[in-house]
């Protein structure tokens, strides 16, 4: 996990879309929102899930690894940047390889775009737009110590399972205390036939 990062607590999210609107104001992708707000059980539950780039650390940035044009740069501080506009060929490899479903693509512009942790702000110590405006603290920016100073005893997880693969990330999620040692399920459906795991 990075020093200062985003902590996501879906339990606090009220689906107000303030983060979506604020993201559009970010200078590095002005006019286009890079955050996703999904309703996993729409029609039955008001639960909502904000998704920013998780800035994968191990394996490091699968989106950058699969990029055929070497367009995605990971800066020394662990931030996975959006595609370099001169290099991106708009193939969508990153879009479909990302285990968290983060990158977006403009097929007309042949350009991938994604959350870059508001690098124009975070590089200067300011919080990203989404965390700045979130009214409930579902998106918190800071260190884990700063988070715990505000929310004593809170536990976070920064590893997710996709089948047998564990992905460690720079961005973390808030989890109940009894789930800390347990990588958060990434959602990849596991199919079992006669007690044996087979791929979906």
């Amino acid at each position: 996990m990075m020093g200062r990062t985003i902590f996501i607590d879906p339990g606090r999210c009220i689906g107000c879309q303030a983060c979506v609107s604020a993201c559009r104001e970010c200078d590095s992708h002005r006019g286009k929102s890079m955050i996703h707000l999904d309703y996993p059980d729409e029609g039955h539950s008001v639960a909502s899930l904000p998704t920013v780039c998780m800035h994968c650390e191990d394996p490091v940035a699968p989106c950058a690894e699969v990029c055929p044009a070497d367009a995605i740069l990971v800066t020394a501080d662990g931030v996975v940047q959006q595609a370099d506009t001169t290099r991106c060929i708009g193939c969508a490899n990153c879009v479909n390889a990302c285990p968290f479903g983060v990158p977006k693509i403009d097929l007309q512009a042949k350009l991938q775009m994604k959350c870059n942790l508001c690098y124009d702000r975070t590089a200067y110590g300011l919080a990203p737009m989404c965390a700045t405006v979130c009214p409930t603290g579902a998106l918190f920016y800071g260190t884990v110590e700063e988070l715990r100073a505000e929310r004593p005893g809170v536990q976070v997880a920064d590893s997710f399972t996709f089948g047998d693969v564990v992905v460690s990330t720079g961005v973390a999620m808030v989890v109940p205390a009894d789930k800390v040692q347990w990588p958060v399920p990434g959602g990849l459906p596991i199919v079992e036939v006669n007690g044996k795991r087979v791929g979906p």
Partner: protein
Amino acid sequence: MPAVAPAPAPRSVAMRATLAGTAVSVLLVLAIVFGSRLLRDFDSALLPYAVATVFLAFGVAYRYTVWISSPGARRLFRQGWRSLFSAANFRKAPTALPKMIATYLGFQKFLGARSHARWGAHQLIFWGCILAAAITFPLTWGWFTFTSASGSGPGYEMRIWGFKVLGFDSLSVVGWLMFHGLDIAAVLVIPGASYFLWRRMKDRGAITGQRFAYDLVPLIALIVISVTGLLLTFSSIFLHGGGYQFLSVLHMVSVVFTLIYIPFGKFFHIVQRPAVVGMQLFKYTARQDEQVFPCKRCGQPIDTAPYVENLRGTMRDLKLDFDAWAQYCPRCKRVLRGTAYLGHVKKGFK
């Protein structure tokens, strides 16, 4: 889907890249020697430029080989060429390739979708550089010669590899265009590069994460080349050659530096960009056959089936063993993750 060999080891990649670079450089030297009729037409005053192009050829071939050795590029490179050389594809869509080359490489319509101003500025730089390269590369290699039977004109002959291709009067419009082609190129490049330089100073999106050597040096180099080139013409017309020697050295240094820089920095996108045509052709031909891959959960098309299979192969090459996840669209991945969190992690989430 045909199998692709596993990724080569880094050491063998470096060896292959060195061999490719050496082979291309040797071929270029031979092309210079024979194209200039055993150096009879070679202008020794242009030797530094010619040497820089040999270094450029080595650098480009080296980096290109390293680039297409990475799993993502290697697989797409092969699929692109396979689509290109498929007779069946050609019969189905004979105009697809020329259209894509014109759209993506010539007129760069995708840049217009990003910003009209950037498209306009890039077109100025692109056509200016194409014009300049078409004139200077053959000249420095001794492939083009301009000779006058009367010694000082005005009748001139343009020869390529010793063969006369054009006779013109240097005082005519054609003559003026022939002798001022590089001035025209400079006039195209300067406003284009200046716009991008201005944008790099003012646009906060462009400034985010920009690096001097990567983002600014190429623009400064283009402007310096163009301005010193125009000053050479200015010197010969208005200063009777005053300062010409100094300006010609300055111009030469800036061009040589830029040529050698091409494989290492932002200019390498010139070499990489044709990959967009290969990628697009690969997807287009599969789409013609209606080989669309639907999301396993929602059924919305993700991309073409061969493309998804190609991506899964790339992920397996890279030991990203969650390639099965590529069968779900990005939204379904997020919703499934949210559902898992809702059901297994924090039930109070409801």
